[in-house]
């Protein structure tokens, strides 16, 4: 029971709607028949897991159901929970937990700046010395936005005027971080579509500069909006190909979006999930736990 107790916000809604779907299934088809499998596939697709991922998972489960002689839908769903949880890889905690420089990248509007602000607050509250770098020198008022977050979190921020070279802002941020003895440097970058070759090259340059100048491990985190559909996988692939990502943060899980794209990203790219964004307030940031995430997606029948 305790497993789910922390998960009362955000994913709760996802879980409820998924549970409704699956409950319907259970009521209609307690036996594991064709209708059940079709319905299960539908429910998985609705979570944005992707058509291929969904049918792969269902196929695997079907085999397993025969092999292990599952009696009814309940057994299958328990196995499904394990299967989804098994797609996720470990290592997400270290990315923000250890000392280092973390760059946040992603497409426009995914929630990078807000996430940086929330992480700064969390780390500051945990007693760490945090410094923010405003690497988004492109979007209008992005710097001002991060400055407000810095103030809320009570941490120092390094910023230059809009239009200046993001790489040099990063350089300066790291330098300032050294001076004040920061053990967590968080750098916001401008949102860019992964299809924009120029902007991706610019980002590569920024990352190279940071890696060269860094005195601490450099980590790259992709921020993905939970409402993103299958394009999220493409985003993750492109950013990973260009920058060699270390992890992923899923934001906006406080809506009805189920964030199933995280399963696809974990499955294909083996990237750990670092944090989950569940709202706009300073503390709306949750730790990721594979079992919990899977449970939130598929409903907690075992505990009912």
């Amino acid at each position, binding site marked *: 029971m305790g497993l789910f107790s922390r998960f009362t916000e955000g994913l709760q*809604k996802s879980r409820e709607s998924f549970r409704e779907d699956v409950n319907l299934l259970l009521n209609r088809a307690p036996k594991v028949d064709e209708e059940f499998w079709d319905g299960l596939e*539908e429910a998985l*697709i*609705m*979570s*944005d897991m*992707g*058509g*291929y991922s969904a*049918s792969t998972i269902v196929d695997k489960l079907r085999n397993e159901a025969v092999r292990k002689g599952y009696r009814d839908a309940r057994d299958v769903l328990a196995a499904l929970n394990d299967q989804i949880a098994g797609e996720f890889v470990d290592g997400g905690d270290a990315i923000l937990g250890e000392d280092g420089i973390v760059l946040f990248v992603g*497409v*426009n*509007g*995914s*929630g990078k700046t807000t996430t940086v602000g929330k992480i700064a607050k969390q780390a500051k509250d945990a007693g760490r010395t945090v410094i923010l770098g405003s690497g988004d020198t*492109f*979007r*209008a*008022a*992005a*710097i*001002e*936005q991060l*400055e*407000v*977050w810095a103030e809320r979190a009570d941490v120092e921020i390094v910023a230059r005027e*809009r239009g200046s070279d993001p790489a040099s802002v990063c350089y300066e941020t790291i330098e300032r971080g050294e001076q004040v003895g920061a053990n967590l440097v968080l750098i916001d970058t401008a949102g860019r*579509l*992964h*299809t*924009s070759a120029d902007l991706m090259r610019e980002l590569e340059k920024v990352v190279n500069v940071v890696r060269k100048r860094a005195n601490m491990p450099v980590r790259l985190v992709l921020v993905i*909006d939970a*409402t*993103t*559909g*299958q*394009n*999220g996988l*493409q*985003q993750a692939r492109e950013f990973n190909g260009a920058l060699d990502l270390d992890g992923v943060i899923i934001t*906006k899980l*406080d*809506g*009805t*979006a*189920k964030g*199933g*794209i995280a399963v696809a990203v974990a499955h*294909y790219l083996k990237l750990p999930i670092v944090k989950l964004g569940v709202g*706009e307030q300073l503390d709306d940031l949750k730790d990721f736990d594979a079992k919990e995430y899977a449970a939130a997606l598929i409903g907690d029948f075992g505990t009912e």
Partner: protein
Amino acid sequence: MFDNLQDQLQEVFDDLKGKGRLSEADISVAMRRVRMALLEADVSFKVVKSFVTKATARCMEADVLESLTPAQNVIKVVLDELTSLLGESESKLELAPNKQPNVIMLVGLQGSGKTTAAAKLAYLLKREGHNPLLIACDVYRPAAADQLETLGGEIGVRVYRSDEKDPVAIAKAGIRDAIDNLKDVCIVDTAGRLHVDEDMMAEAESIKAAVDPDEVLMVVDAMTGQDVVNVVETFSERVEFDGVIMSKMDGDARGGGALSVREATGKPIKFISSGEKPDSLEVFHPDRMARRILGMGDVVSLIESAVKVQQEEEEAEATERLRKMDLNLNDFLDMNRQIRKMGGVGKLISALPGGDRMMSQGQVDEHALDRMEVIINSMTKQEREKPDIINGSRRARIAAGAGVTVTAVNQLLKQYSETRKQVKKMMSQYSDMSNNSGRGRGKKGKKGGKKRRGPRMGMPGLGGMSMADIKKIQEMME
């Protein structure tokens, strides 16, 4: 696992290629792939389901065009259905002509691109001769008003902002400001809100009631997945928007959400927004969107240009010559000129399904045809008509005249003679076939003759997509 929709449909159609008729089983295989393709394009599950049922029924109908290959029939059915679902005509902004000011209100989720869209809309209206005012009503996101003010400054449109905490009051004051300053259109940018956030949805309702907008536009991110239905349904119920702006269309998301929006709310997509530049707001074209969702490239505009260029007589003549196996270098030249008129090999190929991929992988040499033409231009009339007379010294002369090496000339001639051999071989096959099937010999011959043109023209990897196929698609579209 397929990377994109284009590959998926390509595969469906490859499977169907060469089959004379579609069996029920074929249709079912094709439709399974179409279903998966649509799901991967983020079309909502329920919409996909009803779509596939409809399309399957249409494919089963007897009156599918016999002149098309099975694959083309499936494309046609799928494309037609998609286009009609997306709304067959374009939908424009509805402004009241005698009202001062008209009010446009933007709503949407966080990060969907409202503020950017607001600035783009203002720019569009300004260019159309309006005098717009932007009103910044996002009091929640830090620096949101700063962002709008900066964008407004860049496009020379005034932005109304206030330190007031109540967005309803700001919106009202903004409208008064517009009246005082003789602005004819107000664009109200609101805060991003989640459809499940009761307070925020109520606030959107109050803003709407306060400003009485002529148009409420919802901004929807093209990358949104299955959840888009929940989102737009709630927004539609609460603020009853009039249309949608699909944002971030410059990415590679297929934008299947557009279809779901249409199906779930019946509201039209009015604009697509693609890019950071202020002028990147375009009117929505359902047919183009349908092709984007299917990853089909801009086949129609290609066909439009093909129709303009291609003279039936010319073609008939060439076909006749081909049929008699009397192929000469002038055919090469004609073909090249036609292709250039259509925008060159690059445009031609990228407009074909799978073509963008080939172009980006560098499989296509855009200038191969031009080099070929230069060489042929250095030949005498006689040499072009009877390439067999080209001997060593002629080759040297042609090479010098064209500014290429003799090897290049040799290559061209080798390509020519191989093509001629293939054509010869194929023509005999086709005349056998047409005799057996009892079909018109000329037509088959024409198809066969044209078929060879793809590879002959030095378009590697085109996989049988030739002028004949383009013509077929053209017939299909009519």
